[in-house]
Protein backbone atom coordinates (compact mmCIF):
# COMPACT_ATOMS: atom_id res chain seq x y z
CA UNK A 1 0.00 0.00 0.00
CA UNK A 2 2.82 2.39 0.99
CA UNK A 3 4.66 1.66 -2.23
CA UNK A 4 1.54 2.45 -4.25
CA UNK A 5 1.12 5.76 -2.48
CA UNK A 6 4.77 6.63 -3.15
CA UNK A 7 4.32 5.76 -6.85
CA UNK A 8 1.18 7.92 -6.99
CA UNK A 9 3.03 10.78 -5.33
CA UNK A 10 5.84 10.60 -7.86
CA UNK A 11 3.45 10.45 -10.81
CA UNK A 12 1.65 13.56 -9.58
CA UNK A 13 4.92 15.33 -8.78
CA UNK A 14 6.42 14.67 -12.19
CA UNK A 15 3.21 15.49 -14.04
CA UNK A 16 3.40 19.00 -12.54
CA UNK A 17 6.99 19.38 -13.73
CA UNK A 18 6.12 18.03 -17.16
CA UNK A 19 3.30 20.53 -17.39
CA UNK A 20 5.49 23.56 -16.65
CA UNK A 21 8.21 22.12 -18.93
CA UNK A 22 5.73 21.92 -21.78
CA UNK A 23 4.68 25.53 -21.15
CA UNK A 24 8.32 26.67 -21.20
CA UNK A 25 8.94 24.90 -24.51
CA UNK A 26 5.91 26.58 -26.04
CA UNK A 27 6.98 29.99 -24.73
CA UNK A 28 10.52 29.57 -26.04
CA UNK A 29 9.19 28.77 -29.52
CA UNK A 30 7.02 31.88 -29.58
CA UNK A 31 9.73 34.19 -28.17
CA UNK A 32 12.13 32.88 -30.80
CA UNK A 33 9.67 33.73 -33.58
CA UNK A 34 9.64 37.35 -32.38
CA UNK A 35 13.39 37.62 -31.86
CA UNK A 36 14.14 35.93 -35.21
CA UNK A 37 11.86 38.45 -36.91
CA UNK A 38 14.03 41.24 -35.53
CA UNK A 39 17.20 39.50 -36.67
CA UNK A 40 15.89 38.88 -40.17
CA UNK A 41 17.26 41.74 -42.24
CA UNK A 42 15.25 40.73 -45.32
CA UNK A 43 11.99 41.82 -43.71
CA UNK A 44 10.77 45.38 -44.01
CA UNK A 45 9.96 47.08 -40.70
CA UNK A 46 6.27 46.92 -41.48
CA UNK A 47 6.27 43.22 -42.41
CA UNK A 48 8.35 42.49 -39.33
CA UNK A 49 5.90 44.24 -37.04
CA UNK A 50 2.87 42.56 -38.65
CA UNK A 51 4.50 39.17 -38.15
CA UNK A 52 5.24 39.98 -34.52
CA UNK A 53 1.73 41.34 -34.00
CA UNK A 54 0.26 38.12 -35.34
CA UNK A 55 2.42 36.06 -32.97
CA UNK A 56 1.43 38.25 -30.01
CA UNK A 57 -2.27 38.13 -30.85
CA UNK A 58 -2.11 34.36 -31.13
CA UNK A 59 -0.43 33.93 -27.77
CA UNK A 60 -1.72 36.66 -25.48
CA UNK A 61 -5.11 36.66 -23.76
CA UNK A 62 -5.75 39.98 -25.52
CA UNK A 63 -9.52 40.20 -25.02
CA UNK A 64 -9.35 39.26 -21.34
CA UNK A 65 -6.55 41.76 -20.69
CA UNK A 66 -8.46 44.45 -22.63
CA UNK A 67 -11.51 43.95 -20.40
CA UNK A 68 -9.40 44.00 -17.28
CA UNK A 69 -7.56 47.20 -18.06
CA UNK A 70 -10.74 49.02 -19.12
CA UNK A 71 -12.04 48.75 -15.56
CA UNK A 72 -15.41 50.40 -14.95
CA UNK A 73 -15.70 51.79 -18.46
CA UNK A 74 -16.21 48.30 -19.86
CA UNK A 75 -19.58 47.76 -18.23
CA UNK A 76 -21.06 51.00 -19.48
CA UNK A 77 -20.18 50.47 -23.13
CA UNK A 78 -22.18 49.02 -25.99
CA UNK A 79 -21.15 45.96 -27.98
CA UNK A 80 -19.77 47.84 -30.97
CA UNK A 81 -17.64 50.19 -28.83
CA UNK A 82 -16.26 47.18 -26.96
CA UNK A 83 -15.36 45.49 -30.23
CA UNK A 84 -13.52 48.57 -31.53
CA UNK A 85 -11.78 48.92 -28.17
CA UNK A 86 -10.61 45.29 -28.22
CA UNK A 87 -9.14 45.73 -31.71
CA UNK A 88 -7.41 48.93 -30.64
CA UNK A 89 -6.16 47.32 -27.45
CA UNK A 90 -4.74 44.28 -29.22
CA UNK A 91 -2.72 46.53 -31.52
CA UNK A 92 -1.64 48.60 -28.52
CA UNK A 93 -0.51 45.47 -26.68
CA UNK A 94 1.40 44.24 -29.73
CA UNK A 95 3.12 47.62 -30.10
CA UNK A 96 4.14 47.56 -26.44
CA UNK A 97 5.51 44.02 -26.51
CA UNK A 98 7.19 44.48 -29.88
CA UNK A 99 8.85 47.68 -28.71
CA UNK A 100 10.11 45.99 -25.54
CA UNK A 101 11.35 42.87 -27.35
CA UNK A 102 13.14 45.03 -29.93
CA UNK A 103 15.51 46.10 -27.16
CA UNK A 104 16.28 42.48 -26.31
CA UNK A 105 16.73 41.27 -29.89
CA UNK A 106 20.53 41.50 -29.94
CA UNK A 107 20.93 39.77 -26.59
CA UNK A 108 20.91 36.17 -25.52
CA UNK A 109 18.32 34.74 -23.16
CA UNK A 110 17.51 31.67 -21.16
CA UNK A 111 14.30 30.47 -19.57
CA UNK A 112 15.71 29.96 -16.10
CA UNK A 113 12.82 29.07 -13.82
CA UNK A 114 9.34 27.72 -14.28
CA UNK A 115 6.80 27.35 -11.52
CA UNK A 116 3.17 26.31 -11.52
CA UNK A 117 0.99 28.40 -9.24
CA UNK A 118 -1.60 25.85 -8.19
CA UNK A 119 -3.88 28.37 -6.49
CA UNK A 120 -4.31 30.56 -9.57
CA UNK A 121 -3.64 27.87 -12.22
CA UNK A 122 -0.95 30.02 -13.75
CA UNK A 123 2.58 29.07 -14.79
CA UNK A 124 5.30 31.62 -13.99
CA UNK A 125 8.28 31.45 -16.31
CA UNK A 126 11.41 33.51 -15.72
CA UNK A 127 13.31 34.64 -18.81
CA UNK A 128 16.79 35.94 -18.05
CA UNK A 129 18.15 38.25 -20.73
CA UNK A 130 21.91 38.66 -20.75
CA UNK A 131 23.88 41.66 -21.89
CA UNK A 132 27.59 42.41 -21.53
CA UNK A 133 27.01 44.34 -18.33
CA UNK A 134 24.45 42.20 -16.55
CA UNK A 135 21.08 40.59 -16.91
CA UNK A 136 17.42 41.40 -16.58
CA UNK A 137 14.64 38.98 -15.63
CA UNK A 138 11.26 39.05 -17.33
CA UNK A 139 8.57 36.87 -15.76
CA UNK A 140 5.85 35.57 -18.07
CA UNK A 141 2.52 34.57 -16.57
CA UNK A 142 0.94 31.86 -18.65
CA UNK A 143 -2.49 30.28 -18.38
CA UNK A 144 -3.78 27.19 -20.17
CA UNK A 145 -7.15 27.07 -21.81
CA UNK A 146 -8.63 24.48 -24.16
CA UNK A 147 -5.24 22.84 -24.66
CA UNK A 148 -3.62 26.14 -25.60
CA UNK A 149 -1.36 28.45 -23.65
CA UNK A 150 -1.94 32.17 -23.30
CA UNK A 151 0.25 34.86 -21.78
CA UNK A 152 -1.80 36.90 -19.32
CA UNK A 153 0.91 39.21 -17.99
CA UNK A 154 4.58 40.18 -18.16
CA UNK A 155 6.61 41.38 -15.20
CA UNK A 156 9.83 43.37 -15.68
CA UNK A 157 11.71 44.65 -12.59
CA UNK A 158 8.72 43.93 -10.34
CA UNK A 159 6.45 45.90 -12.66
CA UNK A 160 3.46 44.17 -14.18
CA UNK A 161 2.62 45.29 -17.70
CA UNK A 162 -1.09 44.63 -17.18
CA UNK A 163 -1.31 46.46 -13.83
CA UNK A 164 0.59 49.42 -15.30
CA UNK A 165 -1.69 49.52 -18.34
CA UNK A 166 -4.76 49.39 -16.12
CA UNK A 167 -3.50 52.30 -14.04
CA UNK A 168 -2.57 54.25 -17.18
CA UNK A 169 -5.92 53.58 -18.90
CA UNK A 170 -7.80 54.34 -15.70
CA UNK A 171 -6.15 57.76 -15.52
CA UNK A 172 -6.98 58.53 -19.14
CA UNK A 173 -10.52 57.14 -18.90
CA UNK A 174 -11.25 59.45 -15.95
CA UNK A 175 -10.50 62.38 -18.23
CA UNK A 176 -13.19 61.24 -20.68
CA UNK A 177 -15.77 60.33 -17.99
CA UNK A 178 -15.18 56.62 -18.51
CA UNK A 179 -16.51 56.90 -22.03
CA UNK A 180 -14.91 54.02 -23.90
CA UNK A 181 -15.84 55.42 -27.33
CA UNK A 182 -13.96 58.66 -26.60
CA UNK A 183 -11.09 56.65 -25.19
CA UNK A 184 -11.02 54.61 -28.41
CA UNK A 185 -10.09 57.78 -30.28
CA UNK A 186 -7.19 58.46 -27.88
CA UNK A 187 -5.99 54.87 -28.09
CA UNK A 188 -6.26 54.84 -31.88
CA UNK A 189 -4.19 58.04 -32.16
CA UNK A 190 -1.54 56.68 -29.78
CA UNK A 191 -1.39 53.45 -31.79
CA UNK A 192 -0.80 55.45 -34.96
CA UNK A 193 2.12 57.31 -33.35
CA UNK A 194 3.63 54.11 -31.94
CA UNK A 195 3.12 52.26 -35.22
CA UNK A 196 4.92 54.96 -37.18
CA UNK A 197 7.82 54.83 -34.70
CA UNK A 198 8.24 51.08 -34.82
CA UNK A 199 7.94 50.82 -38.59
CA UNK A 200 9.99 53.89 -39.56
Amino acid at each position, binding site marked *: *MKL*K*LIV*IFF*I*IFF*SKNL*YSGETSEWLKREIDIILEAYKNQNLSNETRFLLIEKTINNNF*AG*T*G*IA*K*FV*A*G*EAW*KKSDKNTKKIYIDNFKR*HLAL*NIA*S*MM*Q*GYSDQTYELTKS*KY*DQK*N*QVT*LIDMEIF*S*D*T*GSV*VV*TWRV*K*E*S*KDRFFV*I*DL*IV*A*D*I*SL*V*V*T*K*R*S*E*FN*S*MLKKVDNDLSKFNE*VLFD*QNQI*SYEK*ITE
Partner: protein
Amino acid sequence: MSKKIIILFFLFFSLLSYKVVASEADQVNTDSEDFETTTIEDEIYDPFEPVNRAIFSFNNVADRIVLEPIAKGYKKLPSPIQSGFNNFLSNLRTPLVVVNQLLQGQAENAFQSSGRFVVNSTVGVFGLFDVAEKIGLEEKEEDYGQTLATWGVGDGFYIVLPLFGPSNLRDTSGMVLTMLTDPINAYAVSEGEAWLVPMRTAVNAVDTRSQIIDEVNALRDNSVDYYAAVRSSYYQNRKAAINNVDDSELTPLPLISIEFE
Protein backbone atom coordinates in the same frame (compact mmCIF):
# COMPACT_ATOMS: atom_id res chain seq x y z
CA MET B 1 -10.46 -4.10 -4.47
CA SER B 2 -12.18 -1.03 -3.11
CA LYS B 3 -8.76 0.40 -2.16
CA LYS B 4 -7.58 -0.05 -5.75
CA ILE B 5 -10.64 1.79 -7.05
CA ILE B 6 -10.03 4.62 -4.60
CA ILE B 7 -6.36 4.87 -5.64
CA LEU B 8 -7.24 4.79 -9.35
CA PHE B 9 -9.93 7.39 -8.84
CA PHE B 10 -7.50 9.58 -6.87
CA LEU B 11 -4.81 9.20 -9.53
CA PHE B 12 -7.22 9.90 -12.39
CA PHE B 13 -8.69 12.93 -10.62
CA SER B 14 -5.29 14.39 -9.72
CA LEU B 15 -3.86 14.02 -13.20
CA LEU B 16 -6.87 15.65 -14.75
CA SER B 17 -7.25 18.37 -12.18
CA TYR B 18 -5.15 20.86 -14.15
CA LYS B 19 -7.40 20.61 -17.16
CA VAL B 20 -10.61 20.60 -15.15
CA VAL B 21 -9.64 23.55 -12.97
CA ALA B 22 -8.19 25.43 -15.91
CA SER B 23 -11.45 25.20 -17.82
CA GLU B 24 -13.28 26.31 -14.68
CA ALA B 25 -11.02 29.33 -14.58
CA ASP B 26 -12.21 30.22 -18.08
CA GLN B 27 -15.72 30.48 -16.76
CA VAL B 28 -14.64 33.29 -14.46
CA ASN B 29 -17.00 36.14 -14.98
CA THR B 30 -14.66 39.10 -15.21
CA ASP B 31 -16.06 41.96 -13.27
CA SER B 32 -13.34 44.59 -13.39
CA GLU B 33 -14.33 45.98 -10.01
CA ASP B 34 -13.53 42.76 -8.19
CA PHE B 35 -9.87 42.61 -9.03
CA GLU B 36 -7.37 42.79 -6.26
CA THR B 37 -5.19 45.10 -8.30
CA THR B 38 -7.65 47.98 -7.98
CA THR B 39 -6.17 48.48 -4.51
CA ILE B 40 -2.90 49.51 -6.17
CA GLU B 41 -4.66 52.39 -7.91
CA ASP B 42 -6.48 53.38 -4.74
CA GLU B 43 -3.25 53.39 -2.77
CA ILE B 44 -1.68 56.03 -5.00
CA TYR B 45 -2.57 59.32 -3.38
CA ASP B 46 -1.70 62.10 -5.77
CA PRO B 47 -3.34 65.34 -4.56
CA PHE B 48 -0.80 67.54 -6.34
CA GLU B 49 -1.20 65.87 -9.70
CA PRO B 50 -1.25 69.09 -11.80
CA VAL B 51 2.02 70.30 -10.23
CA ASN B 52 3.53 66.83 -10.44
CA ARG B 53 2.59 66.59 -14.11
CA ALA B 54 4.31 69.92 -14.82
CA ILE B 55 7.51 68.79 -13.06
CA PHE B 56 7.24 65.43 -14.82
CA SER B 57 7.12 67.18 -18.22
CA PHE B 58 10.19 69.21 -17.29
CA ASN B 59 12.04 66.05 -16.16
CA ASN B 60 11.01 64.31 -19.36
CA VAL B 61 12.49 67.08 -21.50
CA ALA B 62 15.65 67.12 -19.35
CA ASP B 63 15.89 63.36 -19.79
CA ARG B 64 15.53 63.55 -23.57
CA ILE B 65 18.00 66.42 -23.95
CA VAL B 66 20.62 65.58 -21.34
CA LEU B 67 20.36 62.27 -19.49
CA GLU B 68 19.34 59.90 -22.28
CA PRO B 69 22.03 61.02 -24.77
CA ILE B 70 24.71 60.78 -22.04
CA ALA B 71 23.39 57.37 -20.97
CA LYS B 72 23.49 56.19 -24.60
CA GLY B 73 27.08 57.42 -24.90
CA TYR B 74 27.96 55.69 -21.63
CA LYS B 75 26.41 52.49 -22.97
CA LYS B 76 28.94 52.57 -25.82
CA LEU B 77 31.86 52.32 -23.40
CA PRO B 78 33.49 48.88 -23.21
CA SER B 79 31.39 46.68 -20.92
CA PRO B 80 34.18 46.13 -18.31
CA ILE B 81 34.31 49.91 -17.80
CA GLN B 82 30.53 50.12 -17.38
CA SER B 83 30.55 47.19 -14.97
CA GLY B 84 33.45 48.77 -13.09
CA PHE B 85 31.51 52.03 -12.62
CA ASN B 86 28.40 50.15 -11.61
CA ASN B 87 30.25 47.99 -9.08
CA PHE B 88 32.16 50.96 -7.68
CA LEU B 89 28.97 53.02 -7.13
CA SER B 90 27.14 50.05 -5.69
CA ASN B 91 30.02 49.43 -3.26
CA LEU B 92 29.88 53.05 -2.09
CA ARG B 93 26.21 52.55 -1.21
CA THR B 94 26.88 49.44 0.87
CA PRO B 95 27.64 51.08 4.28
CA LEU B 96 24.19 52.68 4.28
CA VAL B 97 22.61 49.45 3.06
CA VAL B 98 24.11 47.75 6.13
CA VAL B 99 22.73 50.47 8.42
CA ASN B 100 19.25 50.05 6.93
CA GLN B 101 19.40 46.27 7.11
CA LEU B 102 20.26 46.57 10.83
CA LEU B 103 17.45 49.07 11.36
CA GLN B 104 15.08 46.57 9.76
CA GLY B 105 16.37 43.73 11.93
CA GLN B 106 17.97 41.88 9.02
CA ALA B 107 21.10 40.82 10.92
CA GLU B 108 22.06 38.05 8.50
CA ASN B 109 21.73 40.32 5.44
CA ALA B 110 23.69 43.06 7.24
CA PHE B 111 26.45 40.55 7.95
CA GLN B 112 26.50 39.48 4.28
CA SER B 113 26.54 43.07 3.01
CA SER B 114 29.38 43.95 5.38
CA GLY B 115 31.26 40.97 4.02
CA ARG B 116 30.58 42.20 0.48
CA PHE B 117 31.93 45.63 1.34
CA VAL B 118 35.13 44.26 2.87
CA VAL B 119 35.79 41.78 0.05
CA ASN B 120 34.96 44.18 -2.80
CA SER B 121 36.85 47.11 -1.28
CA THR B 122 39.99 45.02 -0.91
CA VAL B 123 40.17 42.05 -3.29
CA GLY B 124 37.79 43.83 -5.66
CA VAL B 125 40.11 46.88 -5.93
CA PHE B 126 38.02 49.64 -4.27
CA GLY B 127 34.82 48.00 -5.43
CA LEU B 128 35.60 47.97 -9.15
CA PHE B 129 35.14 44.21 -9.32
CA ASP B 130 32.27 42.34 -7.71
CA VAL B 131 34.32 39.50 -6.28
CA ALA B 132 31.84 39.00 -3.44
CA GLU B 133 29.08 37.90 -5.83
CA LYS B 134 31.33 35.11 -7.08
CA ILE B 135 31.76 33.73 -3.55
CA GLY B 136 28.03 33.76 -2.90
CA LEU B 137 27.60 37.13 -1.17
CA GLU B 138 24.59 38.47 -3.02
CA GLU B 139 23.84 42.16 -3.39
CA LYS B 140 20.73 43.33 -1.55
CA GLU B 141 19.53 46.93 -1.62
CA GLU B 142 17.89 48.63 1.35
CA ASP B 143 17.33 52.34 1.92
CA TYR B 144 15.73 54.64 4.51
CA GLY B 145 12.45 54.72 2.59
CA GLN B 146 12.23 50.94 2.90
CA THR B 147 13.22 51.12 6.57
CA LEU B 148 10.52 53.70 7.32
CA ALA B 149 7.98 51.54 5.49
CA THR B 150 9.03 48.52 7.55
CA TRP B 151 8.46 50.59 10.67
CA GLY B 152 4.91 51.24 9.54
CA VAL B 153 5.29 54.69 7.98
CA GLY B 154 2.81 55.07 5.12
CA ASP B 155 3.62 56.28 1.60
CA GLY B 156 2.23 59.78 2.04
CA PHE B 157 1.35 61.62 -1.13
CA TYR B 158 3.00 61.07 -4.48
CA ILE B 159 5.61 63.63 -5.50
CA VAL B 160 7.60 64.13 -8.66
CA LEU B 161 10.89 65.72 -7.68
CA PRO B 162 12.67 68.01 -10.12
CA LEU B 163 15.45 65.96 -11.78
CA PHE B 164 15.15 63.13 -9.21
CA GLY B 165 11.83 61.88 -10.59
CA PRO B 166 9.00 59.91 -8.97
CA SER B 167 8.84 59.60 -5.20
CA ASN B 168 6.45 59.96 -2.30
CA LEU B 169 6.61 61.76 1.03
CA ARG B 170 8.13 58.81 2.87
CA ASP B 171 10.74 58.01 0.23
CA THR B 172 11.68 61.69 -0.11
CA SER B 173 12.30 61.81 3.64
CA GLY B 174 14.38 58.67 3.21
CA MET B 175 16.36 60.32 0.44
CA VAL B 176 17.09 63.36 2.63
CA LEU B 177 18.21 61.03 5.44
CA THR B 178 20.50 59.26 2.97
CA MET B 179 22.07 62.57 1.93
CA LEU B 180 22.59 63.57 5.55
CA THR B 181 24.00 60.32 6.86
CA ASP B 182 25.98 58.88 3.96
CA PRO B 183 29.50 58.36 5.37
CA ILE B 184 31.19 58.63 1.97
CA ASN B 185 29.53 61.99 1.26
CA ALA B 186 30.33 63.19 4.79
CA TYR B 187 33.98 62.24 4.30
CA ALA B 188 34.16 64.06 0.95
CA VAL B 189 32.67 67.22 2.50
CA SER B 190 35.01 67.07 5.51
CA GLU B 191 37.98 66.81 3.15
CA GLY B 192 36.84 69.93 1.28
CA GLU B 193 35.79 67.92 -1.76
CA ALA B 194 32.06 68.65 -1.60
CA TRP B 195 31.86 68.72 -5.41
CA LEU B 196 32.18 64.94 -5.31
CA VAL B 197 28.67 64.65 -3.84
CA PRO B 198 26.70 66.02 -6.83
CA MET B 199 29.17 64.34 -9.16
CA ARG B 200 28.46 60.98 -7.54
CA THR B 201 24.70 61.60 -7.83
CA ALA B 202 25.04 62.49 -11.51
CA VAL B 203 27.17 59.44 -12.34
CA ASN B 204 24.69 57.26 -10.44
CA ALA B 205 21.84 58.71 -12.53
CA VAL B 206 23.68 58.06 -15.81
CA ASP B 207 24.61 54.52 -14.77
CA THR B 208 21.05 53.68 -13.73
CA ARG B 209 19.52 55.30 -16.83
CA SER B 210 21.88 53.40 -19.12
CA GLN B 211 20.51 50.13 -17.79
CA ILE B 212 16.90 50.94 -18.64
CA ILE B 213 17.15 52.75 -21.98
CA ASP B 214 15.00 50.25 -23.87
CA GLU B 215 12.42 49.81 -21.11
CA VAL B 216 11.95 53.56 -20.62
CA ASN B 217 11.69 54.19 -24.34
CA ALA B 218 9.20 51.36 -24.81
CA LEU B 219 7.04 52.79 -22.04
CA ARG B 220 7.35 56.39 -23.23
CA ASP B 221 6.68 55.62 -26.89
CA ASN B 222 3.64 53.46 -26.25
CA SER B 223 1.78 55.03 -23.35
CA VAL B 224 -1.53 56.84 -23.61
CA ASP B 225 -0.63 58.48 -20.31
CA TYR B 226 3.10 58.24 -19.65
CA TYR B 227 2.79 60.06 -16.31
CA ALA B 228 0.29 57.52 -14.95
CA ALA B 229 2.38 54.63 -16.30
CA VAL B 230 5.51 55.88 -14.50
CA ARG B 231 3.55 56.53 -11.30
CA SER B 232 2.14 53.01 -11.29
CA SER B 233 5.54 51.50 -12.14
CA TYR B 234 7.16 53.41 -9.29
CA TYR B 235 4.65 52.15 -6.74
CA GLN B 236 4.85 48.55 -7.91
CA ASN B 237 8.63 48.61 -7.84
CA ARG B 238 8.81 50.17 -4.37
CA LYS B 239 6.21 47.80 -2.98
CA ALA B 240 8.28 44.83 -4.12
CA ALA B 241 11.48 46.37 -2.68
CA ILE B 242 9.83 47.02 0.69
CA ASN B 243 8.42 43.52 0.97
CA ASN B 244 11.63 41.84 -0.18
CA VAL B 245 9.60 39.15 -1.88
CA ASP B 246 10.13 37.48 -5.23
CA ASP B 247 8.58 39.88 -7.76
CA SER B 248 6.50 37.32 -9.56
CA GLU B 249 4.92 36.16 -6.32
CA LEU B 250 4.25 39.59 -4.94
CA THR B 251 2.85 41.37 -7.94
CA PRO B 252 -0.93 40.96 -7.76
CA LEU B 253 -2.26 38.50 -10.26
CA PRO B 254 -4.85 39.97 -12.58
CA LEU B 255 -7.77 37.57 -12.92
CA ILE B 256 -7.88 37.51 -16.66
CA SER B 257 -10.30 35.29 -18.47
CA ILE B 258 -9.40 33.66 -21.73
CA GLU B 259 -12.00 34.34 -24.33
CA PHE B 260 -12.35 33.09 -27.84
CA GLU B 261 -14.11 35.21 -30.36
